[in-house]
């Protein structure tokens, strides 16, 4: 849990701040009509952030950071016979090695997504102060206006599902590694690629079902 959660906090924070800031500036640029209230930029940036950027982009990054680590760690245990040693001792190796990682994934990814949402909105606010495209007051008004709690629920459902996808696919790839160092690398790559594809597919399905 520490590795998945605390270990990923830095990269998630940086990415969220920058994406939040860039999204706000781009939305403000596209809605530069005098007929559209400036606070709309805050509303659109908020919903984009909560619904898509924070859960999906964060999970894609986590698939690279955490997923590759899970796959290579378990893969290395396989090729160095550590998993065989567990099995000889009568340990249910999949349960012992994979289950804690899935639990860490489904609990830590939602927490990271909450952090990502908060920092994404903060990034938008900082962009407003620095760029002046939208006033901070307009931005905050937009963030508050028409807020629907469903968007956060959707984000959290996505986060739980994405956490499960990352941990289970990467652990599976690692567990069924055979060969040596080359194959461990290949398993990690396969784990990340399959996780990313499944995250994007699940994103579409959850969005369609819940919105």
């Amino acid at each position, binding site marked *: 849990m520490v590795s998945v959660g605390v270990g990923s906090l830095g990269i998630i924070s940086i990415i969220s701040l920058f994406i939040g800031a860039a999204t706000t500036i781009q939305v403000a640029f596209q809605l530069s009509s005098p007929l559209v209230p400036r606070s709309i930029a805050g509303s659109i940036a908020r919903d984009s952030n909560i619904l898509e950027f924070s859960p999906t982009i964060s999970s894609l990054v986590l698939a690279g950071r955490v997923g590759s680590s899970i796959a290579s760690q378990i893969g*290395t*245990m396989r090729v*160095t*016979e*550590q998993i*065989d*040693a567990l*099995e*000889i*001792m*009568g*340990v*249910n190796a999949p349960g012992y090695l994979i289950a804690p990682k899935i639990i860490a994934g489904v609990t830590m990814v939602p927490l990271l997504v909450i952090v990502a949402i908060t920092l994404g909105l903060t990034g938008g606010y900082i962009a407003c102060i620095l760029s002046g495209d939208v006033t901070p007051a307009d931005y905050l008004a937009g963030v508050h206006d028409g807020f629907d709690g469903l968007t956060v629920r959707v984000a959290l459902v996505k986060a739980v599902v994405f956490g499960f996808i990352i941990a289970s696919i990467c652990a599976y790839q690692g567990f069924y590694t055979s060969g040596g160092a080359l194959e461990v690398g290949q398993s990690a790559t396969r784990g990340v690629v399959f996780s990313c594809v499944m995250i994007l597919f699940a994103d579409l399905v959850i969005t369609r079902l819940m919105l």
Partner: protein
Amino acid sequence: MIEISDIHKTFGDNEVLKGISADFKPGKNNLIIGGSGSGKTTLLKCIVGLHEPSEGKVFYDSECFTTMDFRERVPIRKQIGMLFQNSALFDSMTVEENIMFPLNLFTNMPNSEKLDRANFCLEKVNLVGKNKLYPSELSGGMKKRVGIARAISMQPKYLFVDEPNSGLDPLTSILIDNLINEITEEFNTTTVIVTHDMNSVMGIGDHVLFLNNGEKWWEGTKEQIAHTDNKELNEFVFASKFMRAARAKL
């Protein structure tokens, strides 16, 4: 007593084991020898249940291990200790934690007793005071000895050893062989050792099984090897000038 009966193992079209039957003597060092690719390690993995035989059965004290499911095997697994070719120590654990791992799994001993047992095992393998080191801080020979300490921590009835001397210098190899021999004698374990090291065979081979091309080619004692007229076994055992010279003196 471990008995194997007509063990076959096939990977795809490749038949690695072709009907091997044997008994492994209790309280003795039972060596499985043979050239590379002869099926030694595959046979060992079939015996301990890491591979399921395509045909044939493995019996531990007349109980058929092959037909048992995972849960039924656990009581037998508690009596098994194994030293792997690469030691297979858990990287994230210290030496002490590695040795205490099976104790944590299978016993309700108080922590102090587990520590005492770990220290006893470390003393047995001559690694007193190395408790807090990680596997990455150990030499190859030390890793093997920690692997042995972990394997004997549950005081197993059956000890399996895969290539104990691979990658070790001759002195360390002899030390590991002597250690395994001492453990076999002291704990009266049924020890099964896969090796192609002739020093081990001539040193501790109470009962030797020679595999050739996936078949049992010869079975006997180390004393009988020197006088065998089995062509393949002769070619294998006495391939080096050193071994030929040694036989000439017998």
